[in-house]
């Protein structure tokens, strides 16, 4: 009796969780199945079931014909570069705000940046567009229509969120650590690079992946600011792909899998650090 009650107690959460898991993953499994089905007919006749035969050539065709490879590499380098740049700038800023002795000034600056979280990105689309156009005069060559038109706003766009998370994390670092470092003769830059940054790694990893996901999936700016096919990023490419190949759901599904894969891999590898980072940083904010 007690045995069954105990095992009931043990299995009940798992039943609930597995149910939740199925709900969460089912659409994704549907894409996986569809991506290896032969054609629309095969998908339409058995939309949500297991494929009867496997057609892995869909992946090859999506990669080659649909230029997924080009979009993929564009997205990969832009997302990585911007995430890294945001982190460097934001952690420097967060360090100055939380660890340097200008508390009043820093508090004001922090609030000032916090407001950025509330600014609706879509509302600023046009002003940013016009500003990027004007920047041609500053840089001597056009910004719009190049990857720079995405790199700058992506790097800037993630700043408020990143600063908030990193500041929260850095604030929780005990002051004794850096006092000891200063005693050892380190200057501010040394304290930042040798002491604070290594401790902040979990939070850095977390904001990296969150920003990476954001950049990887960003659609509206990429759609507006880039007009040449070879420069497009994956989300824009995927929507174009849908408009063009709305007759070929199987290839489209293969394309979707390509668009999810890298982020999944990064998440799986860095999972532990992300959790740590969220625990230590964002949570106490």
């Amino acid at each position, binding site marked *: 009796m007690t045995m069954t009650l105990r095992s009931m107690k043990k299995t009940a959460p798992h039943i609930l969780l597995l149910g939740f898991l199925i709900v969460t993953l089912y659409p994704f499994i549907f894409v996986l199945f569809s991506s290896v089905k032969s054609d629309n007919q095969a998908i339409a006749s058995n939309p949500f079931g297991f494929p009867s035969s496997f057609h892995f050539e869909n992946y090859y065709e999506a990669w080659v014909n649909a230029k997924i490879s080009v979009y993929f590499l564009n997205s990969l*380098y832009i997302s990585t*570069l911007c995430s*890294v*740049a945001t982190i*460097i700038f934001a952690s*420097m800023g967060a360090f100055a705000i939380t660890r340097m002795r200008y508390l009043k000034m820093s508090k004001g600056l922090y609030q000032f940046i916090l407001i950025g979280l509330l600014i609706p990105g879509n509302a600023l689309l*046009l002003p940013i*567009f*016009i500003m990027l*156009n004007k920047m041609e005069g500053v840089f001597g*060559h*056009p910004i*719009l*229509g*190049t*990857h*720079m038109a995405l*790199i700058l706003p992506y790097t800037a766009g993630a700043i408020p969120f990143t600063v908030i998370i990193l500041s929260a994390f850095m604030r929780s670092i005990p002051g004794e650590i850096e006092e000891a470092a200063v005693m050892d003769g*380190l*200057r501010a*830059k*040394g304290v*930042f*690079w*040798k002491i604070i940054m290594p401790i902040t790694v979990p939070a850095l990893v977390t904001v990296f992946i969150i920003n990476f996901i954001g950049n990887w999936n960003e659609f509206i700016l990429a*759609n*507006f600011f*880039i*007009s*040449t*096919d*070879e*420069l497009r990023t994956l989300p824009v490419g995927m929507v*174009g792909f849908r*408009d*063009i*190949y*709305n*007759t070929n759901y199987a290839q489209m599904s293969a394309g979707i899998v390509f668009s999810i894969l890298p982020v999944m891999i990064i998440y799986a590898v860095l999972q532990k650090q992300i959790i740590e980072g969220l625990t230590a940083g964002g949570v106490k904010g």
Partner: protein
Amino acid sequence: MKKSVLVSSLSLVLATTTVLSTAGAATKTDTIVIRHTQLGEAKQQRLNILKDVLARVSKEVPGVKYKLDGVDSDVNRKEKLRSEMVVNKAPAIFDLFGGTDTQLYVEANRLLDLTPILKELGLSNKFISLDEFKVNGKVYGLPIGGYQEGYFYNKDYFKAHNLSVPKTLSELESLAATIKKDGKTPFAQASKAAWVPLMTANTLWSRYAGPDITNGFTTGKTKWNSTQMVAAFTKYQDWVKKGYFKQGELGLDYAEQRNQLIRGEAIMMYDGSWASSVFSDPKQAGSLTNKVGYFALPSVSGGKGSQTAVNGGFSNGYGFSSKVKNNKQQYAFVKSFIKNMYNDEMQIRGLEADGVLPSMKVSSSKLANAKVSGLVKEIIEVGNKASGAFPAFDSLVQPDVNTALSEGIQKLIAGKTTPKAMLDAVQKAQNAANSNEDF
């Protein structure tokens, strides 16, 4: 070390950014960009035509590099080109719509005046109609083809059930009733984008209230909520209530509409002639290939004005940036482009390959010899029999009115409003737009 790490890592980031982005710089000033909308299998032939034209142009005007840039038509029209126009960064050659779009860009001096080029090339009188691209008597764009709208239908089904092409609206309705009884959907439709159901509605109201009524809305001469307009939309609502359209079609993308016809679940479909090429391609149309017929929306007894006019026109084509004028080579390129794109040969090619109706006065003997599908012949036939054509409403009314009407028709389909209430709201938007309100 400490300083150098910071500085070098920063400069590394900046350097990579600059190098990578300049390496990817899209447009050098001496490269001509051609924005087209010929994407996907269905438009492959049209893209080939464009490529052939450009090959000839670059022979005539050597030394000018060009680049093709394909963007989805709707995205280009509503977002891309529009925002490029704001910063005056439109490509040299681009896909352009006539009517309100062209007027807006002309007002801001963004479009190249083509009148002198047409004169020079002897093309001034070669087009069937340039009205939609004319502003103050000058031409700012050239239609690539014409279109008209009508009913596509499943011929085999009509034969098997002894149905014939309707001559009056009541015949069309009894057809629909028969099809409905047979368990099929009479009219294929997918109304996530409101312009799709508005194709039917536009012609229906032109039957009830006369084809010219749409011209009067912006001047205030005619009213959206007049009796005949209400009658037209009441008829539309009647069809919705009787279940003549697929249930849940409000959530479906435009492409789904033809799939309903191809799958055999719907028997008729109101669409533009541009859809015709799908039905001669076995890869897209499957078992329905070459088994689709075409007829115009039939006459309404007691309707006003011509009952055979078709919704058709020449509203989509190419426009050119006004900046081209300052660059001799680019100007020569554009001239050569117009010469090689707009001629009998390319018009016939477009017709043969894709069923694009000519926008130019192609000689009738050449037209008769063109190898076209039976469906395209039927479409041309309907056009020839028509007493005239009227343009789609969206090239005649202001964007805000279009938005009000779009929301109205979707609400009507959803059963959330009545024809009268809906048209009152549209008229209200029309009044506001006409009064040139200060916002």
